[in-house]
Each structure stands twice: as structure tokens, then as C-alpha cells.
């Protein structure tokens, strides 16, 4: 019995020794169908310096600079047939580096551009953006006498696949406040033209700068809403309209400016993010309906 016991124990020890030769396995954390890079950028048509954030989606958040800088970025003007390799600028947030690539050229309206990111192992992400046209704004009348006077606001040269968002800016209490004008009425296409237009008064537009309390809007049509800061409380009658002309890629937010889900926009091929172009301008106009409270 002793010998049998010893043999069993010895056999077990030999088994254990053999098991020590088993190989280790490396973990592959990413699924095989991969998203290579993320691209986030909103080119400004009138700017000669635009920045695009690009990240390898398989690099960790806490990676070192050397680990994340292993790809090249090419910017092409598809209409002109030109191509430029972009250089980057590194911005650190909490000691964590991010790569932001510089588009350093004059952009032309209604031109197709393509941004391509290519890694050292041949993984590629690409996205396109078409710059919008250049629109101008006209106000009729140019100067109003009261805040309740209707103003015809028109934007011209807006293609069907483009749209405008605009904000009213006013000075109150020494500070400037802006609000996107959307509550009372929306811009509508003028039939038979490439114009967008809306008729509003200053009080209507103030509703979006100084929104009324929720209780005051229940069962009340928006055109009767009252802003929490009235016209006669403003510092002066000098107003700003800041408008952005969006290119066709921004369709995802045409109905709701908060709806841009960059993860599901589908804008980047084999990647994540969003890349588009816009044109932002600002004009001043005055009303005599505001006493000078400065």
C-alpha cells in the first residue's frame, strides 16, 4: 500500500511538472471588425487655419505621444485635384496628448474636400466634406422703430442641401448674450429661389436669447411668448446677427442642433466622428425701439 501510494503521488507530481510547460495566450481586446480612426473637425470657410482632431481608436486614452503618432493625414481638394499632407500640433489635457492636424489653406465655396488618415499597417479612415456657398443676409427694414416692427430676414445663395442657423446677440447688463433664433418661426425656402427667409420682430427673437419661464409657455402660441428680458431693458439698440451657413454633411442636425450623434453619423468611412464645413458671419443692425440704458 505504501508503494502504491507513493507511485500515485509520483505520477501526480510528474503530471503537474508537465502542465507547467503550457503556453500563455495574448489577449486581443478589440473585435476584428475595427474602426480605425476618429476624425472631428468643423472647417470654417473664411479661415485659413482649421484644426482637425484625429485619434487612433485602438490606442488607449492614457497613451504616450510616441504611441499615438503613427499615422499620416492627407487633405485633398477633389475639385482642383490637389493634395497636401497635414502636420499636427499637440495639445495636452491633464498631461494627456491629443493630435490636432492643421489645414493651412484657403478654402473655396462649394468645393469637395477629402481627408484621409492612413496608418503604418495600411488601415485607412476617410471622410469628405463639401464647403457651403457664401450667403449674404438682408434685413428689411434695416432699422426698425420699435421692437414689435416686423423684419424680413433673408439669406441668399443657400443650396437645397445647405441650411442656415442664426443667432441674435444683444447687450444686457454690460454683457453680450446670444440665442439661436428658432422658437417663434423657422427659416423657410423662398419658392423659386435659393433664398431662405423669415419674418420676425425683435421681441420674437429675444424669446430665444432670454427664454420665458416654462409655466408661461403652456398652451400659449410661441408668437405670444414674452422674453424674460424685454426690449426696453437692453443696454442699447445695437444688435448682432450671427449666422452659420452649413454644408451638406450637417444634415444630421438640420432639425435639431443638439442631435449630432458623432458616433452614429456615419460620416467617417471605417472610422468614427464627424467632419464638415461651415461659414459663419456676423452683422450689426440697430433699432430705435430700445432706449439707451448705458
Amino acid at each position, binding site marked *: 500500500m505504501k508503494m502504491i501510494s507513493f507511485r*500515485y503521488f509520483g505520477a501526480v507530481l510528474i503530471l503537474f511538472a508537465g502542465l507547467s510547460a503550457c503556453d500563455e495566450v495574448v489577449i486581443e481586446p478589440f473585435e476584428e471588425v475595427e474602426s480605425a480612426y476618429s476624425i472631428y473637425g468643423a472647417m470654417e470657410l473664411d479661415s485659413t487655419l482649421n484644426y482637425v482632431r484625429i485619434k487612433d481608436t485602438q*490606442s488607449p486614452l*492614457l497613451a504616450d505621444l510616441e504611441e499615438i503618432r503613427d499615422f499620416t493625414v492627407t487633405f485633398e481638394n477633389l475639385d482642383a485635384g490637389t493634395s497636401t499632407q497635414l502636420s499636427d500640433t499637440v495639445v495636452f489635457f491633464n498631461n494627456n496628448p491629443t493630435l490636432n492636424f492643421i489645414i493651412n489653406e484657403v478654402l473655396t465655396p462649394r468645393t469637395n474636400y477629402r481627408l484621409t488618415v492612413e496608418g503604418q499597417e495600411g488601415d485607412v479612415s476617410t471622410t469628405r466634406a463639401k464647403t457651403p456657398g457664401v450667403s449674404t443676409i438682408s434685413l428689411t427694414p434695416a432699422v426698425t422703430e420699435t421692437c414689435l416692427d416686423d423684419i424680413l430676414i433673408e439669406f441668399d445663395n443657400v443650396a437645397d442641401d445647405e441650411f442656415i442657423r442664426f443667432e441674435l446677440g444683444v447687450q444686457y447688463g454690460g454683457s453680450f448674450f446670444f440665442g439661436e433664433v428658432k422658437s417663434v418661426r423657422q427659416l423657410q425656402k423662398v419658392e423659386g429661389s435659393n433664398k431662405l427667409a423669415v419674418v420676425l420682430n425683435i421681441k420674437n427673437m429675444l424669446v430665444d436669447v432670454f427664454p420665458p419661464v416654462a409655466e408661461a409657455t403652456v398652451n400659449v402660441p410661441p408668437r405670444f411668448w414674452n422674453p424674460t428680458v424685454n426690449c426696453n431693458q437692453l443696454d442699447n439698440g445695437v444688435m448682432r446677427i450671427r449666422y452659420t451657413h452649413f454644408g451638406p454633411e450637417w444634415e444630421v442636425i438640420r432639425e435639431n442642433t443638439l442631435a449630432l450623434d458623432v458616433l452614429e453619423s456615419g460620416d467617417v468611412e471605417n472610422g468614427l466622428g464627424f467632419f464638415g464645413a461651415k461659414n459663419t458671419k456676423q452683422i450689426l443692425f440697430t433699432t430705435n425701439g430700445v432706449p439707451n440704458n448705458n
Partner: protein
Amino acid sequence: MVINSIRKLALCGFFLGVLFTLLPSQIYAQTRSTLRVLVISEEDGNPIIGANVILFRKSGTMYKAGATNADGLWEFINVNNGTYDLAISSIGFEKHEAEITLAPGETRLYRTELPTANSELGEVIVSGTRSGAVQRVAGKQSISVTDIQLIPAPGPGGDLSVYLQTLPGVVTSGDRGGELFIRGGTPAQNLILVDKMPVIKPFHISNLFSAFPQSVISNVDLYAGGFGAEYEGATSSVMDVSLRQGNMRQFQSQVAASPYIISALAEGPLETDKQSLLVMGRYSVIEQAGPSLTGEDVPLKFSDIMARYSINWDGFTCNMTALHTYDRGKINPQRNISLGWENTAVGARCLGYSEELKNSVDFTIGYSSYKSSEIGFDDLGRTSNISIGYLRMDNTGTAFDHPYNYGFRWNLNFYKANLDEPFPEITGKPQRFGLGATLEEYTSVFSTYLSTEFKPTNTLSITPGITTQIRQENVSMTFEPRFRMTWKPLGTDNQELSFAVGKYVQLREAITDERDAGTVFYVYKPVGVDEPVPTAIHAITGYRQRIGDFIEANIETYYKHNDNVPVAEWTREPGNTIRTAFATAETYGLDLQLQLKTDLLYLTLGYGLAEVEYSASADDLVAWIETDEFVYNPSHDRRHQLNILASYKIGKFTANAIWRYSSGAPYTKLYAIDLIVRVPYQDPLQNQGKAVTLYSVPFDGNLPAFQRLDVSIDRKFQLSPKLELETEIGAINSYDMTNVFYFDVNTLRQVNELPMLPYASISLNIN
């Protein structure tokens, strides 16, 4: 509201009155007698657990048999008056025989002390009384100190935690975290009792240790499922730990040290054979010793202290126990997350069995609290606490010639949690658990049970039972039938079939972000009165066969169906608001145990095959998967488990080795890691963007398989009649296998379990 509360309490009181009025403790002919046998160790005056107690007729045939419980007591009920031969035996003790004559209607208490035996004697074994790897009866396994001693542990003596991990069907989260998943159930679905005191998490942050070293354990009953009516409030398993009394005859002490832990124990009589006190304390030192032993930081700290006052009167014994555990540490050294928990339990348990009592009575009262915290994630701190005041009574009786057990419990539970920052919608900080900033709730649960045992033949035992739980808040009552059966077709202990089935309800749930294995923080809360209640159905079949004198085998198949299991909602990214959805869990499994036992060699092989599958409505569970129902295997689904244990006596040395293998845990692969810049509103030069880790299909990957070999060799030295030195040297993970604890998605680095950990421990026992 006051009137409602009074009404509810009245209903509870009425139910209790019905229970004790309509179920008289005895309905039997006046000629039947009761014999209570108390078996004590002559050496230390402590109860002997699992001693075989058999009544033989004068003709020599066996009449009734049983095995002593954790108090050293066995009760024969409904005995015909007459003269019998009583035989008492236990491994390691001299056998005792006596003639007993019982008068009609007599209740007799027979007390005996067994001297220690020099050699093991042959004995008749009563089913379910022996411990050992193969001693499973429909999910129940009795674990003795002898079993625990066989498993190498880096501390002085053995520990229950290390032993449990060698059982098929028991899965841990790695070598840290203090979590045990038993046959598909989660840690929150387990009920752990220490001398009937509920303790939420008595396992230390290093999974190599628990609050139960072998030096204080008397016996452990582990029900991996299919537990009887006497246990309520859990839907997976029950671990019933019995602690031993302090030595009633002589003073003893022990000091021990190893690179992992130092400990001290002192016990002795305050009044010989009447009162004793046992105090034990342990403190970890691995944080200091780990770097030099393993070459890496081991930021784990834990300690525990236990005191036990025991008093034995004639026919009455009381034990008062106080337990406190403390754990702090980072289970992922690379992340700045500090986890911690503390258990505090104080209770008294009294057992009355004197001849003046027609029925023995078991009464327990006490208080238990659990406090946990997680600090550092998202730079936020969180706490979750439970406080439980409890009272329980267990009684026995007879009705229509059948013995029955019944009892009641009353738990007052107070839940308190502070989660994230207040007003997260203002600060912009995410609400991780979707429960709001604070949780403060109180519940009262009253439960009762009734079970009886039918023995149509000497070889067949059938135990049906029923458990009910009543919540004070809505006076809703659960209905939980239970059924257990054992059968020895050959009429001997060489072969046994067993079966258990039951329904189980749990009125408490725990929520965690299970996708983040770098944390073991749970938010405990009561099941809301309007919420679906977690419920389980268990079914277990078992077969045990002894082959020859040395080999024994046991095979069990089991099935668990769980409804309304709370799981974290699967958003694309972690760290956002996490709400719970409810999943259905199905667990199928098979456990096989083989044992070879000779005088010198103890060899076991355990194999477990199991599948755990969760399913939930995609609408409830997942924001972005386009199927109606989503089915997945959670992280504690380890398909195959294999354990081989060998223990061999070589002269005065004992060599132990255990090799463990399990399939890799499911984990969720990544789709991408990104910083989202919300163009056009955010400028990439001014905003870092929102960090997101986008998961792929949940749990569709598998980590590498786990395997580890632990070895040890120990020897005792008798330095003097009163001084004994125990020494042990060994190594955990002796061939330095790289086992993955989990994969950190923030750093894309795998976090490994500890490498090879050599150790040497010494224990000095002073009598």
C-alpha cells in the same frame, strides 16, 4: 400610515400565533420517548461534530441512527420505550457503547465524553456525516478542519476561502476581490451564516483568506443549491459556518506568522467545563512583504478579530460571538481606485436540550452590519451599507408520528448608500448607478419555515418543507416549497442517490457595473414593493459510489433558473448613467469528484462542467443591439474546471499540492476608444473631448484559461510537552503562471494575478 403599520404587525403576530397554536409540538402516543445524546471531547471539553450515534435493538439490528450537529448533539425523537444498545463513534476518538433503557414518554439527556484514540477504529458511517471532497448530498457538502488543512495557503494553517476555490462549481473573480460565484450564482445571491449570524462579505480582499481560518472553525455546511426550508433569503447558495468553542479544560494560545499574515489566538476556561473564552486576531503584512517576494506592489490590507464566549449549563449551552473584519486596497494597482469593506457582527445563540424541555429549542439574536466604499473612480466616493437586526428561533416537534422542524426569523434591515455627487445634473458629474445621490431605506422581513422527514424505509429519507417570507411594507408573502431526498439502494453507505428541488426568493439585490471587473463595489438595496422579486428554481441530482476500500466517486447534475436578476444596462460607454435591467439566468452543470484515500495518500480529482446564460429584453437591456432578446454568458461562466489535489505523508512531513484549471472568463471586447469632440460647439484646441470606451457585443470574448499549482510541505515539532511548533513552506502559483485577472480598457493593459508567491510560516502552540 400608523394604522397601516399596526395592522401589518398584527397580521404578522397573528400568523405567528397560528403557527404555534395549530402546530402543537407533539402529537404522538404517550408511550414514545425522546433521547438526546451530547458527545463531548474528553481532551478539551468541546462538542464533537459528526459523531455517529446509533441505537441498536437488543436483537442487534439497527433501530435509529444520526450524527451529532455543530453543538455535539443528536436527538432521537419518537422512540419506542424499551432497552437499546447505544453506540457512539467518531474518527480520532475512542468508541463508546452503553445500554439505554427508556421509559414510556421519557425525555432523556445522555452525555458522554470520548477520549482521543491512538489509532483510527472502524466505524459505521452515517450518511452525510463524513467530510471530504466526495461527500456531497444533493448540493450539500460538509467541510471539516481536516479538509481545509490539506490545501496550501500562504498563511499559518489553512483557510476556508482557499478550500472553497478547489471545489468544482465555485468560481472566484481572481486572486483578489473577495467574491465567490457558486454554481452560476453571484456573490449577492449567497447567504453566509456564522453561527446563524448573517454576514454579508466575510471573504478578504485577497481571495486567499477569509474570516474563517481553520483554527476557529468547527464545521462548515456548504449548500451549492437545493438547500432546505430552514434557510431563506438567498437564491443561489448557503454557507453555514459553525465556530468552535474555546477550550473548556485548559488554556491554549497560538502565535503565527508568514509573509502574508500574522495572527494570535488565545483560549481557555473561565470556569472548567462551564465557561470558556476564545479570542483570535489576524493582520495582513503582504503589503509590506509583497514587493520583495513578488517583485510588484501588492496594495492589499486586511484584518479580522473574533471573540467567542461560551457557557454550558446542564441541558443548555450559549455562545456569544463578536466578529469584525476589515479590508482595504486596490485590486488593480494601476488604477487609482480604493475599495474597502468592513463586517461587524455580534450575536448570541442558545440551545436548550435539557430533559425538562419536551423539545429542543435553538434561539439566536444579534446584529450584523456591512459597510463598503469605493473611492477614486471619476474622482468620486461612494458608500453602501447594510445593518441587520435579527432574531431567530428553531424548534422541533412531532406530529402524526413524524418529526418536524419549524422556526421563524425576523430581520430588520437598514440600507444606506451615498452615490456620486449630489445634483449631478447641475455639476455635470455622471450618476453611475441611476439611483440618485443617496439611498436610505428600511425593511422588515418576517419568515417562517416548516419541514418534516419521512423515512418509509431505513434507506430512504424524504424531507419536504415550506418557507415563507413576509415583507412588512406590503405584507406580501412568498411561497417557497423545498424538497430533499436521499436513498441508499444497497442499504449501506457505499452507494447513495440524492435529489433536491426547491423555489427560492430573495428580497434584497445588489447592483454593480459588471463590465468593469476592476471594481467589486455593489450597491445593496431592498427589492422595491413594485419591483419584480428575484426568484430561483433549483434542481439537483446526485450519485455517490464507494469502490473498494480506498476509492469513492460522486457525480452531481444541477439546474438553476433565476428570474429578475438585476444586471447593469448596456450602454455603449461605461461611466454614464447605469440603470438596472432584469435578466433571466439559466445554469446547467455537472460536478464530478473522485477520491482516493489511504493511510498515507489523499488524492482527489474534481471536474466541473457548467454553462451560465443570461437573457434579457434588448429594449430593457441594451441601447444599441438590434435584436429582440439578448443572450450572453456573463463573466462568471467558466465552462470547464478541473482540480487535482494530492496530499502525501512522508515520515513526519506532509506534502500537499493542488493544481487548478478553469476556462477563461468571458469578457467584452472593445469596438473603439475615443475622445468625442462635439463639433461645431467644441473647439478641439480648447476641449479634450469626452472620453468613451465603446464596447462591442457584451461578453463575446474569452480571457485565457486559468491554471495554477500551489505546493506546500509541513511538519510539526514537539519542542516540549506544552510547546508545539508547526512549520510550513510552500509556494502559491509555484510555476509562476501568468493568469489574467482582468483587462483594463482604459490602459489597454491586462492586470494579472499575483506571480509566484513563496512563503514560509510558523505557528507556535502553547498549552
